[in-house]
């Protein structure tokens, strides 16, 4: 087996697994803060909800930390040529995450979990606020790092090929960073809203903890609807226009747009057939892609076949599916949350058992959508590690052999099986104990 493949697979596997946890904690931090604000205004049920979700948050946070440390390490261990070339730039944003976000989170999480009696209600609210700020800052620094790899700015290249930092503020004002950050954070809010709604629906269907469960649902559905809409427009729209502008090859590949066309259609479903350069069994909205990207029905969109093959992403099929799974699920989320919000507004959501079933069973799908979204970003960046500057094939550690890398990949897989089992077991125990 080629070493590069194993290094790529290990990073993809560990980062995909890792991101199950932060997408829940980042969104949940916002929801806990909202609930705590309600509690501070005298809503006692909301305070039960805060204590319950803080427990889930604490457990998930620890999982996020222990699966996150390997991500930082792997830049050096598996991607040493990339680390050496780009560390002078992205090392800053990664170190800032540790210094500004992690210390804040780890300090105030303890107070959120155990400090309510000692701090009083106001102090506890501050702890919830700071945990929220910490987790969202953490997301910001990571997205700035990724945005730089998608669209490098604020650098200069020294004569030895090392990329140097020219401007720190450029990393944060990167045109790619803010849209990507908003899109990612809205995605995490969707995940947390669906999880909160699912647990609320679960309790209501069983007739347990009814007042608290109804509070879960009302907060989760309102926030979830807002977030689902924002994910599509404006954040998703901004993101896709950025891809179109700066990574046109990726755009053509992820949309399944093979040939240059005036008035290009938007592909809803279809299987890419790379040998024939076409989609099998397509369902297409005519002219829609041109309209969405240019606001003109007749605008020209360049197709994949007009780009040099050496610039094509190396797994176009998976990129195409990842993007369509994300966009498709995102649309369904708007539907589910709109319907739930309608019944919530009428005051009958807790009686609609069919809808509660849907909300409960929807739990895994936002995780899939968020993962598919990141797969779109990362597969779409290929064949580049740093877009336009360094190819993925030039970034891995040449001194770490395939055999050694495979050893650790297998080790991570085994370790994550144990992690999953334990997380699942403890989380179900917390849910079984209930919020009261």
């Amino acid at each position, binding site marked *: 087996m080629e070493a590069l493949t194993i290094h790529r697979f290990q990073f993809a596997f560990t980062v995909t697994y890792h991101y199950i946890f932060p997408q829940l904690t980042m969104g949940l931090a916002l929801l806990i803060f909202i609930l705590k604000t309600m509690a501070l205004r005298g809503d006692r049920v909301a305070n039960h909800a805060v204590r319950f979700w803080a427990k889930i948050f604490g457990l998930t946070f620890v999982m996020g930390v222990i699966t996150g440390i390997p991500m930082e390490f792997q830049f050096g261990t598996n991607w040493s040529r990339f680390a050496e070339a780009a*560390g002078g*730039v992205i090392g800053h944003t990664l170190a800032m995450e540790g210094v500004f976000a992690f210390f804040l989170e780890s300090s105030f999480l303890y107070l959120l979990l155990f400090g309510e009696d000692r701090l009083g209600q106001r102090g506890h609210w501050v702890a919830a606020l700071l945990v929220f700020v910490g987790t969202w800052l953490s997301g910001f620094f990571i997205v700035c790092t990724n945005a730089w790899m998608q669209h490098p700015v604020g650098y200069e290249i020294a004569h030895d090929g090392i990329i140097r930092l*020219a401007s720190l503020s450029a990393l944060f004002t990167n045109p790619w960073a803010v849209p990507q950050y908003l899109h990612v954070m809205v995605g995490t809010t969707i995940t947390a809203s669906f999880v909160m709604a699912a647990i609320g629906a679960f309790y209501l269907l069983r007739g347990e903890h009814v007042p608290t469960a109804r509070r879960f649902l009302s907060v989760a559905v309102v926030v979830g609807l807002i977030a689902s809409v924002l994910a599509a427009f404006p954040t998703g729209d901004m993101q896709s226009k950025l891809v179109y502008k700066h990574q046109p090859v990726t755009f053509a590949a992820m949309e399944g747009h093979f040939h240059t066309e005036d008035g290009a259609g938007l592909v809803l479903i279809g299987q890419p057939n790379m040998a024939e350069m076409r989609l099998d069994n397509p369902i297409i909205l005519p002219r829609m892609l041109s309209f969405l990207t240019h606001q003109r029905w007749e605008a020209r969109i360049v197709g994949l076949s007009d780009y040099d093959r050496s610039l094509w992403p190396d797994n176009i099929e998976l990129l195409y599916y990842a993007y369509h799974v994300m966009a498709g699920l995102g649309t369904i989320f708007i539907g589910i949350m709109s319907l739930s919000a309608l019944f919530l507004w009428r005051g009958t959501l807790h009686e609609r058992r069919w809808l509660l079933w849907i909300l409960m069973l929807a739990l895994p799908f936002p995780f899939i959508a968020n993962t598919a979204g990141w797969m779109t970003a990362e597969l779409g960046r290929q064949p580049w590690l740093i877009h336009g500057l360094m190819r993925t094939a030039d970034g891995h550690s040449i001194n770490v052999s395939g055999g050694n890398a495979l050893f650790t990949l297998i080790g991570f897989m085994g370790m994550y099986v144990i992690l999953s089992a334990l997380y699942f077991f403890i989380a179900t125990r917390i849910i079984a104990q209930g919020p009261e």
Partner: protein
Amino acid sequence: METLWFCLLAWMLATYVVLDGFDFGVGILHLFVAKTEAERRQVIRSIGPVWDGNEVWLIAAGGTMFFAFPKLLAVAFSGFYLALMMVLWLLMIRALGIEARHYLTDPLWARFWDVAFAAASVLLGVCLGAALGNIVRGVPFKEDGTFFEPLWTDFRVGQETGILDWYTVLVAMTAVLALAHHGALWLKARTDEAVEERAGRLAGRLWPLVVMLSIATTIATVVVQPNVRESLAARPWGVVFVGVAVTGLIGAHVLRQRGRDFPAFLASGAYLYGMVALAAVGIYPYVLPGRDPALGLTVHAAATSKTGLVLGVYWWIPGILLACGYTAYVYWTMPAKLSLRDAANH
């Protein structure tokens, strides 16, 4: 500027060793100091609020190394590949042990996670010590500026050395015992009743071993890495750290005997700071010496551009001051003593 960042990085790593060191130490001693279920809970809860914050120092130090010395991160992390991956897995097992202990009440699984937590703590102590040993001894650089160390070869300190040889094993043993001693002092200061008493007794037994091994390690270091002598000769003020380490170690013993438990713990922290600082002074001007001195990675070669280092100062200093503030606040809000009765009632 490069030297400033070298000092800051060494300071961060030393802080990490002192902080996460005591909770590793607590883990190492866990099975010996706590016999009943309530005592085990008491021990774990004495580090419960702080262990993950302590680990953040490792992450932050890694990040700092990444932007200030990207080449060091690239060369060292890939060269110590297997050992670092094992450190990651051990950190996971330890964290799982602490979490599982918090939520699982079934005695069978509690027992399992107790052993897993203790074993992972011992091995992490070994890894920290071996890492320090490798950095001081120097690594087998190749002509292209990279290296890859297997876990072990023939345990001799030669050109084809592995991560474990007789020297790094010696440093690792010193580290495990020093951290156990450090952890015992933490427990003595932070718990009561049987655990406090056992921790005190263990600290008393561990202390002479730590003294002997520290002396042995120091002698071995001078033999294995001649650069240390030259470095100290060139920078005689480095001897201050010998003073810090020796005073800390003796202070830890004397203060404990006088019943001043928390100062004794701080003295042990000073000893660890002194040892790490000595290592840093000893390897300078290298950040990673080579077995072949000509191939070693120097501070200047490893550092990023001047601009990057200067920009780093602007955000790093305020950031780390804030972090120290949070850390201090958490320790300040923790109960001074975690009583057995509270742990039993949980």
